[in-house]
C-alpha cells in the first residue's frame, strides 16, 4: 500500500462510550447469535447511559447469519441510518471501528454500535463456520485454521530459531491473566510443560497453543467527542486506525513471517502520533501462540525474529514489563470464532480503570490489534483516555 489509507480520519474524531460482553462460554440452549448481539448492545447502551432508540448506526458481523444487519435491526426494532456488515474474519470489528469513525465524522449517524454474536460451542464449529472448498488446498486436508498458522510457525522457527517452549510461554502468560479475570473460561493454572505435552493438533501446536472454542458476543458504542463527554463513562478516544489485507488463503501469503500488522500498525501509529513505546496496554488477537509473537514484532514492540525471546521470563504475563492480552486472550478467556471485538472491550475497560485485579496501573493508551482469516486481514486500533487527546 502507498500513502495513508485513513488520512481522512481525524485523531480522536470519535470515542467509545459503551462496551459490554454478552453471555460467554457455553450459553443457554436456544440462544442464537442475534440474541447475543442484542444482549451485548442492551448492556453496552446501559453502560453508556444511552437508550436503544439512540442507535442510528449499526455495524455487525457473524458467520452464522448471512444478513445479520437485517436480522439484528428487526430484532431490535430499529432502522439504522448507517449500516455496515463488513466481514473479514476476526478483525472485522476493528475495520468497523474505522468505518464508524468515518460515518460519525461525516454525520451519517450519531450513535454507532458494533456488535458480534456466536454460538459456535453450542452448535459446533462445523455448523457455525462452514468451510469453503478450495481445489488448491482442500485435497491436502488442512485442518483450518490450525494448519495454516502451524505453517507460519514452522517458518518462524526455521528462520529465527523460535522454539515450542517460547510459544508455550505465550499460552502460560495468557492463562495467568485469565486467572485474574472472573469472566474467563479457563480457571486453572497452566505450565509450559503442560502446553508441550498436550494433545498434538498441527505440529508445532498442541491444543494449548490454540484458542478456545466458546460461545459469546458483545457490543461497543461510539459517538462524537462532543456527545461522548456528556455521557456516563469517561470517553475512550479512537486515536488511530490502520488496516491491511495480504491474502485470503495461506498458500497465497507473500511471506509467512511478516503479517499485514506491520502496515496496519504503521498506519495506526501515524494517525495517533504514537509509537509502540508509548502504548500502555497491548491487546493482540491470539488465536494461536505464534500470533502474539508475530504481532509483537510487526507492531514494533520488538524486532522481527526476536518475538520468541521477547515473551520468555514472564515479560507479557501479569507483573511483567509489557501487559499483553490482559483479559486472558483467545487462548484462555473466550474465543467464539471472530474474537476481535473482545480486544476492543478489554482495551476500553483498561483505559477506564475497570479491570480490578488485572488492571494495568495508570493506563492511558491501548492498542487493540485484530487478525482475520489465516493471518489474512489485519486491523489495528489505538485508543486513549481524555488526557491523550
Amino acid at each position, binding site marked *: 500500500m502507498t500513502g495513508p489509507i485513513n488520512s481522512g480520519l481525524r485523531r480522536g474524531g470519535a470515542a467509545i462510550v459503551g462496551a459490554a460482553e454478552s453471555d460467554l462460554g457455553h450459553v443457554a440452549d436456544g440462544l442464537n447469535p442475534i440474541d447475543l448481539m442484542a444482549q451485548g448492545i442492551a448492556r453496552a447502551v446501559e453502560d453508556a447511559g444511552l437508550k436503544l432508540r439512540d442507535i442510528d448506526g449499526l455495524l455487525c458481523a457473524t458467520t452464522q447469519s448471512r444478513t445479520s444487519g437485517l436480522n439484528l435491526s428487526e430484532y431490535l426494532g430499529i432502522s439504522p441510518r448507517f449500516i455496515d456488515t463488513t466481514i473479514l474474519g476476526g478483525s472485522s470489528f476493528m475495520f468497523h471501528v474505522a468505518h464508524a469513525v468515518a460515518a460519525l465524522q461525516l454525520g451519517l449517524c450519531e450513535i454507532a454500535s458494533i456488535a458480534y454474536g456466536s454460538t459456535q460451542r453450542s452448535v459446533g464449529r462445523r455448523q457455525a463456520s462452514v468451510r469453503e472448498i478450495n*481445489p488448491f*488446498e482442500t*485435497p491436502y*486436508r488442512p485442518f483450518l485454521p490450525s*494448519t495454516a498458522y502451524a*505453517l507460519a*510457525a514452522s*517458518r518462524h522457527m526455521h528462520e529465527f530459531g523460535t522454539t515450542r517452549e517460547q510459544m508455550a510461554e505465550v499460552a502460560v502468560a495468557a492463562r495467568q491473566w485469565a486467572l485474574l479475570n472472573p469472566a474467563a473460561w479457563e480457571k486453572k493454572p497452566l505450565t509450559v510443560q503442560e502446553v508441550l505435552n498436550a494433545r*498434538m493438533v498441527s505440529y508445532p501446536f498442541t491444543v494449548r497453543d490454540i484458542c478456545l472454542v466458546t460461545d459469546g458476543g458483545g457490543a461497543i458504542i461510539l459517538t462524537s467527542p462532543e456527545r461522548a463527554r456528556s455521557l456516563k463513562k469517561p470517553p475512550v478516544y479512537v486515536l488511530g486506525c490502520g488496516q491491511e489485507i495480504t491474502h485470503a488463503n495461506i498458500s497465497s501469503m507473500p511471506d509467512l513471517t511478516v503479517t499485514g500488522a506491520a502496515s496496519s500498525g504503521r498506519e495506526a501509529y501515524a494517525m495517533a502520533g504514537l509509537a509502540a513505546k508509548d502504548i500502555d496496554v497491548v491487546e493482540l488477537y491470539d488465536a494461536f501462540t505464534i500470533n502474539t509473537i508475530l504481532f509483537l514484532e510487526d507492531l514494533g514492540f520488538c524486532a522481527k525474529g526476536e518475538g520468541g525471546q521477547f515473551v520468555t521470563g514472564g515479560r507479557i504475563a501479569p507483573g511483567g514489563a509489557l501487559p499483553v492480552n490482559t483479559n486472558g486472550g483467545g487462548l484462555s478467556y473466550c474465543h467464539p470464532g471472530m474474537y476481535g471485538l473482545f480486544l476492543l472491550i478489554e482495551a476500553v475497560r483498561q483505559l477506564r480503570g475497570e479491570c480490578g485485579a488485572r488492571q494495568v496501573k495508570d493506563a492511558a493508551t491501548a492498542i487493540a490489534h485484530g487478525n482475520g482469516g489465516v493471518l489474512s486481514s489485519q486491523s489495528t486500533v489505538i485508543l486513549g483516555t481524555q488526557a491523550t487527546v
Partner: protein
Amino acid sequence: MEQSPLAIYQAHLDKGELAYQWSPEAGRAVFYPRLVCPYSGSTALEWRIASGLGTVYATTVTHPQQGAPYNVALIDCDEGFRLMSRVEDIDPMNVRIGLRVRFRTHKPVKSKDGGEEPAYPVFVPAEDGR
C-alpha cells in the same frame, strides 16, 4: 470462455503435468490459475508446464482425531510459484524446510458417492536434490 482455468489445469494434471500460468506483462508466474493476473491486471496469461522440482517453504504435520498424522506443506516451485501440497514417501515429521522435492500426480480415487475425486499434485523427496 470455453474452458475454465481450473479445467485446463486439471486436464494437464490428468496427463501427469503440473501446469501454471505465466504473465508476460508482469514477467512472473501466476498460481493458482485464474482469468486476471494479480500483478499486472492483464488477462493475457499463458500456460506453461513446470519442471516439477521445488523446495519445501513451510511444513506441518496435522494430527486428525482418527487416523495417522499427515504432512501439509507449502512448496516453492523452481519456476517461481508456490502451492499447498503434501510430501510423500517420507515420515511427515522428517519433511524439513529447504528439502528439495519432485512433483508427481496423486491418482484419482473413487469417492464414497461413487464419483472420482480429481487428481492433484503431491511431492516426494528429489533423489538427486538438484
